[in-house]
């Protein structure tokens, strides 16, 4: 299927007029991935996003639009320290940092927690499972973006025990 420059312009216009902040279309050998940025340069997703965008991804059929971004690779998979304790996702699901869309996150990096405090939510098939801090300590790192899909066993938060 051939696509003209005008076609892409048309598609981008639609996105610009809609509330869409991110666009992802792959058909046959055509691939178009776009994210709109807010004024401060961070990707404007509905939920706060922690990972900065990676460099533009090459794409076979698409002209280069303003803000083509590759998927953020999970770069921070290593423990932040030798003593850090991981909170691993018990099941595959979607990771949420806040109790509801628009609400404040349960914890931020640097926050103190007590063992058993709710620190995030794992959505498995629309059932919201609260995950608890595994120890008293400080949130050392949150290597997963809000609303990101995580596999079972993946560390979703690191804690420095106290």
């Amino acid at each position, binding site marked *: 299927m051939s696509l003209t420059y005008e076609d892409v312009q048309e598609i981008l216009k639609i996105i610009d007029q809609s509330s869409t902040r991110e*666009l992802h*279309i792959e058909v046959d050998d055509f691939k178009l991935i776009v994210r709109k940025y807010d004024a401060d340069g961070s990707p404007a997703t509905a939920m706060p996003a922690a990972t900065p965008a990676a460099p533009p991804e090459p794409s076979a059929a698409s002209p280069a639009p303003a803000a083509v971004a590759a998927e953020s690779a999970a770069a921070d998979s290593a423990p932040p320290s030798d003593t850090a304790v991981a909170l691993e996702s018990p099941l595959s699901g979607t990771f949420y940092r806040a109790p509801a869309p628009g609400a404040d996150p349960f914890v931020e990096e640097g926050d103190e927690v007590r063992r058993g405090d709710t620190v995030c939510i794992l959505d498995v098939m*629309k059932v919201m499972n609260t995950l608890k801090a595994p120890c008293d300590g400080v949130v050392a790192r949150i290597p997963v973006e809000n609303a990101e*899909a995580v596999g079972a066993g993946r560390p979703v938060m690191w804690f420095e025990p106290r």
Partner: protein
Amino acid sequence: MLRRVLIANRGEIAVRVIRACRELGIETVAVYSEADRDSLHVRLADKAACIGPPQATRSYLNAGSLIGAAMYVKADGIHPGYGFLAENAAFSDECAAAGVKFVGPTGHAIRRMADKAVARAVAAEAGVPTVPGSDGKAVDADGLAAVAGKIGYPVLIKAAAGGGGRGMMLAETPDRLSRNALSAQAEAQAAFGDSSIYLEKYIGNARHVEVQVLGDGRGGVVHVGERDCSMQRRHQKLVEEGPCPVIAPALRKGLHEAAVSLAASVDYEGAGTVEFLVDLDADAFYFIEMNTRIQVEHPVTEMLTGVDLVREQLLVAGGEGLSLRQKDVKLRGHAIECRVNAEDGARNFMPSPGTLSAYVAPGGPGVRVDSHCYAGYAVPPYYDSMIAKVVVWAPDRAQAIDRMRAALAGYVIDGIPSTVPFHLSLLDSEAFRTNAFNTQWLEKNIERVMPQENTAA
């Protein structure tokens, strides 16, 4: 006639829409998230587009990707299925703006039915009874007692922004009213960021009965019978059947006429469902809401009547109009649907995503299975837990129950727990067989139907 339709959904309903398109000679374009590459709808469609990562917010709920994909493949229609963006008025409008026909009502029609107060007003104007209360309007602390006194106790306090039972409280007597209203407001604030509440008369002994309608968008509306969806757990329908087995012919006729009258009053276009609460103690019915999309349980109606509802949606959207008139709609026998979910009924319905190591769906006379599953398919954890809808038809209700029992007992689902054992137990319950249940029965008797294992999750 539409020429090429993009199906903005996944799972069994995407498969269902592809089938209906294929029968009409309409080309199909599936969309899929990165978690759904191996899903059946991708294989069955003429073409498929990946629209983003597994999270629904970034794929199936991403209007831009969906409309962009539709434009790229030059689709002239988008079928939203149910859930996701199916009742999103803005999405319907955006489709229209992009020159792609949304298979469903206009954004305007969706908005009118989505707003409870407006929908109640529309119903009242069409002469359709609504549950007595504050008419979906917010009530402040001062007005509570007056409204409650007028409609009579017990009253139900509901969050204006609510849904799914959150922010809902019962007040059985006047002395509980203020305290429970405060609780409801707090819960509503926490859940929806909006503490507004409204009041409704509480109807304890009721059935949830809904009427399927089809509108041509020019005021022509036919009803296609009703469905009873009273077997619910946490406001989720688990079993649906038709016709409603506990209402008198006059009440049934009243329901059908009310639904047609309401839908006709808004020049309704496509398939819609008008939901009612039937008060079993008073032989009366009340409008609850209208769903402006095809519903999960639509096959019940198809089994009863032979009408293909998705086909009618596509015909109306394509400008062909409805293929049937009211006199063509003939009901026959009894139909039941069980939603088979990837959930472990014995462990508090814990979701159970995973790989189907073996899978053989039931078949034979009067049995229909709508599903996207197959042997080797991995049910992903990111979306709803439905594996299949098993729908049976038989000349009468007793035989339909026996047929459903046989179909489920012969359903091979290996590798993950499913709700099949729960359904088998429910089908055997005295209450279900004798129709001695209302919308609250299952919630109250869940332990009897499906005893929970004493194991830690």
